[in-house]
């Protein structure tokens, strides 16, 4: 079995699905000849040709808007938005249309498409190249939001996303695109959407994270003596509330770490679920360590914005010492 990074794992998933599903097309800016700015689609044009790997104009709304049409008429588009910060223009297409076509047509038309987009900070990038919009997306009924934290999951989750009958936004944490290598089987496998992963079992506290923050949260926790149960959400929507509730009922304490801004961040929804379903089991208020409620800073200051080891450990102490 090969050790792959996330870029290679996503590439492998795309190739395998392209082989299997003749109606799948990949489209986006620089995804063909250039292989994508992160090289995620490298070599796919050469293998499948220009009719199925399409370099589009620089036009995010056009990419998503026409992908909706492609999906409605029987194709399976996997669109790439080069950086998730460029999703704001096509948000209108995602929220007003992709998410509603099934409802609006009472199931007569559907929109099985995937929007892949590198997201999050930590790579010294330009403004609007570091956004984390999972909560905004998850707030929209009708779409699914999936975030892998490593190469193995990336392959299995992406294949599930491509086969899903509903529109899926697949956010790829670019900070760990090449920072993690894992055994990734060549053979095809899927990881179901809506199922969280208990990365490590523990008894003292539940720690929930996703995307790039999972790696840094795990590393921080290795420096404590607590027995932490670490949950990788994998899927923001649908949310695996059951796994979260079972875990916090066991540990009575919970820390949530995410990179997105705090107010109305996805931690808020998880806390609400814990309140509703496990309040009497809790020994301490749930603590969240998150990005701040500011526009993501340019790179000189980005390390002050993104939760780091020190802040994560402070969070651990806060929830444990209550």
């Amino acid at each position, binding site marked *: 079995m090969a050790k792959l990074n996330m870029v290679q794992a996503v590439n492998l998933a795309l190739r395998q699905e392209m082989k299997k599903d003749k*109606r799948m*097309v990949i489209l986006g800016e620089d995804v063909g000849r250039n292989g994508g700015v992160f090289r995620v689609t490298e070599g796919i044009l050469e293998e499948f040709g220009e*009719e199925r790997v399409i370099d*589009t*104009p620089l*036009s995010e*709304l*056009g990419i*998503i*808007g*026409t*992908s*909706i*049409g*492609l*999906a*409605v*008429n*029987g*194709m399976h588009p996997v669109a790439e938005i080069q950086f998730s910060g460029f999703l704001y*223009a096509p948000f*209108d*297409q995602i929220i*007003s*249309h992709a998410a509603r*076509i*099934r*409802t*609006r*047509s*009472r*199931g*007569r*038309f*559907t929109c099985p498409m995937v929007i892949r987009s590198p997201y999050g900070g930590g790579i010294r990038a330009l403004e609007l190249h570091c956004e984390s919009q999972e909560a905004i997306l998850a707030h929209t*009924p*009708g779409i*699914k939001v999936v975030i892998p934290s490593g190469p193995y999951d990336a392959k299995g989750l992406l294949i599930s996303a491509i086969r*899903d*009958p*509903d529109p899926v936004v697949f956010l790829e944490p670019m900070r760990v695109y090449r920072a993690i290598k894992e055994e990734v089987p060549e053979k095809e496998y899927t990881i179901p959407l*809506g199922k969280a992963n208990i990365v490590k079992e523990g008894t003292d506290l539940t720690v929930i994270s996703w995307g790039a923050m999972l790696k840094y949260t795990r590393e921080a926790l290795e420096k404590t003596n607590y027995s932490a149960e670490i949950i990788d959400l994998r899927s923001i*929507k*649908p*949310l695996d*509330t*059951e796994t979260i509730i079972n875990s916090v009922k066991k540990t009575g304490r919970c820390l949530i770490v995410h990179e997105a801004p705090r107010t109305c961040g996805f931690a808020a929804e998880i806390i609400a679920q814990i309140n509703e379903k496990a309040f009497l089991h809790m020994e301490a208020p749930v603590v969240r360590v998150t990005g701040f409620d500011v526009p993501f800073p340019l790179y000189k200051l980005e390390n002050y914005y993104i939760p780091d080891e020190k802040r994560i450990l402070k969070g651990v102490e806060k929830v444990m010492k209550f």
Partner: protein
Amino acid sequence: MVKKALETFKVEYLQVLDTSGNADKRLMPELSRNQIKELYELMVLVRTFDDKAFNLQRQGRIGTYIQVKGQEASQVGSAYALGPKDWIFPTYRESGALIVRKHPMHMLLQYWGGDERGLKSPEGLNNFPITIPVGTHIPHGTGVAWASKMLKEKVVTMTYFGDGATSKGDFHEGLNFAGIFQVPAVFICQNNGFAISLPREKQTASKTLAQKAVGYGFNGIQVDGNDIFAVYKVAKEAVDRARKGEGPILIECITYRLADHSTSDDASRYRTKKEVEEWQKKDPIGRLEKYMRKNKILTDKYKEAVIQKSKERVEKAVGDFEKMAPSEPLDIFKYTYAQLTKELEEQMYELTKGEL
């Protein structure tokens, strides 16, 4: 020094039938007498439906309604050019095109009566649901046409929008993709002179809307949108060309809404009575009638029968609409995803049991 013209363009305008009902024989599209009667009957049916829907709104029997009145030739003439498997992408003003495309009238009333089930295109008909935000469906028309090309289906899309939509980014991005990928898409811009209150001259400094197509590498043509022959001729040629793989086209239909923007609007705030009266003289139905009389296709008796039959059909649709079973409250959950999520199951329970 080199100085030369790299590109010049011309925009054609087409009128076949003048306001007195005289058709230019050289420009006349191929239409049998029966087809001309069919076009007339469809326009009368659309007008009858439209007037009835307006009255139903005023009586509180349906909610907000958007009238077609005055734009029947643009909608009937264009939709009539399509084949049975072709797609339309309508906006809220396209009751006319939807009726031509056999969307059941009682379902249109159901939709305007606040029931989403009315938008479900019957199986076998590719009538995309009405889009409420302006212009955002234009890329969908391009995308469906693109899929048709990829799948070698020879199916064409017809996307409807108004003059206001041409100011949206969606128009630009949708037409740009259509040009680059040479998809079988026909774009019908019904320029009715106003986007609610904003006159066309303030929408764009461009002399015509048709010429915007030039920037995307395909043809744009302007037609008299109240002339059913001109609209049909241009639309039919466009659909045939698109089906043959010759790419997209933009058709600007110059027309006028003889009604308010919507049942919540008062157009007298921004349009003069004189202007409306001038356009009433150009009414597309009256114009075709004059032609048909001159060519002995229409008699008073026939006209009366068409009006009577239209009224009966519309009354039947109203009856069917009002007899429909109300929607089940749980229906709101069922189409959010292919399968219900756990959250939605919980929320359904909350709605049915009244308990959290």
